[in-house]
């Protein structure tokens, strides 16, 4: 797709529901799994987009949920799902679903919380809990496309064992700075931060506003509100602070 004059957003109308097949499942943390999907007519996606999953019970009752795509634009489709104990969909996806099972999906959807290589940076990515998922897609997109946009990722989780993609993130280099903060429990010898993300921590870790950074903030609603307001207070341009709120119980 690179180098063509065809605008990526021009395409042919809404996506229908279709059947995907599970090709792999990977345990990320005790409550989080990544599910790779084969989707026959997948049109490609942009980093940060979602897909919807619909589960239908034998009595016809159905439930739909929207999940961030965890993969870069040209990689096979995958979602990373956190189990919500009172959820209708996530317990099935994180515990019961097996390789070879079929799943009704619709996507890609969304276009607001999206980064394309041409959007540039410097990028500030701020994740609370499983809000890391679309930001990981952005990191992979950057790497796949050979972008040299400098990135800082500030990732807040409660405990070390709740950090998703930790090995992959620890392996980042070449212009990607990863900053962790663990808000509930820190292992012995922890050298990262150990407090909630607030304006003071952002002032300490984020790009200075003078560099005109592009920020993506994803996490639980209260986390996102705090971070977005903090960045704007530090001088970030509101239109360059993109936010996405999710309903997971896993805290930042």
């Amino acid at each position, binding site marked *: 797709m690179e180098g063509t004059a065809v605008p990526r957003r021009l395409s042919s109308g*809404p*996506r229908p529901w279709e059947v995907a097949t599970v090709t792999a499942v990977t345990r990320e943390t005790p409550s989080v799994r990544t599910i790779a999907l084969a989707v026959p007519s997948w049109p490609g*996606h*942009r980093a940060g987009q979602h897909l919807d999953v619909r589960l239908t019970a034998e009595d016809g009752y159905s439930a739909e949920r929207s999940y961030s795509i965890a993969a870069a634009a040209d990689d096979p489709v995958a979602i990373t799902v956190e189990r919500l104990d009172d959820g209708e969909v996530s317990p099935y996806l994180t515990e019961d679903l097996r390789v070879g099972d079929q799943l009704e999906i619709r996507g890609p959807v*969304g*276009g607001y919380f999206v980064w394309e290589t041409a959007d540039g940076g410097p990028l500030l990515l701020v994740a609370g809990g499983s809000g890391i998922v679309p930001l990981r897609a952005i990191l992979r997109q950057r790497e796949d496309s050979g972008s040299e946009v400098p990135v800082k990722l500030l990732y807040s989780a409660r405990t070390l064992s709740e950090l998703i993609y930790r090995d992959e993130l620890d392996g980042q280099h070449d212009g990607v700075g990863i900053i962790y903060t663990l808000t509930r429990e820190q292992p012995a010898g922890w050298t990262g931060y150990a407090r909630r993300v607030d304006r003071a921590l952002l002032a300490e870790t984020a790009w200075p506003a003078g560099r005109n950074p592009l920020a993506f903030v994803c996490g639980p*609603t209260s986390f996102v509100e705090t971070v977005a307001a903090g960045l704007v207070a530090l001088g970030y341009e509101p239109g360059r602070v993109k*936010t996405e709120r999710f309903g997971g119980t896993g805290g930042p």
Partner: protein
Amino acid sequence: MDELDGNGAAGLLQEVFGMEMTVAVATCASCGAVAPIGESGLYTGGPGTVIRCRSCDGVLVVITQVRGIHCVDLMGIRQLDMPLGNMAAGRA
């Protein structure tokens, strides 16, 4: 259910409107605040899908499904600005 944001309704909105709607910018009919649908509040815990203004909590959009049709109430939006060429979420 917790309050989410309009990004979570992208699939439904695309089904109803036939195009990617989370980048559309709505002017709230109640308070005049201007924000992308993706930034607006989303409530899915009650009947139907409700999108609210983040500034005043005024209802922007209500979509309910009744007898096989989507009923779409847009009374809370005074103006909706769409980026040109924004036809669908996928790639060409």
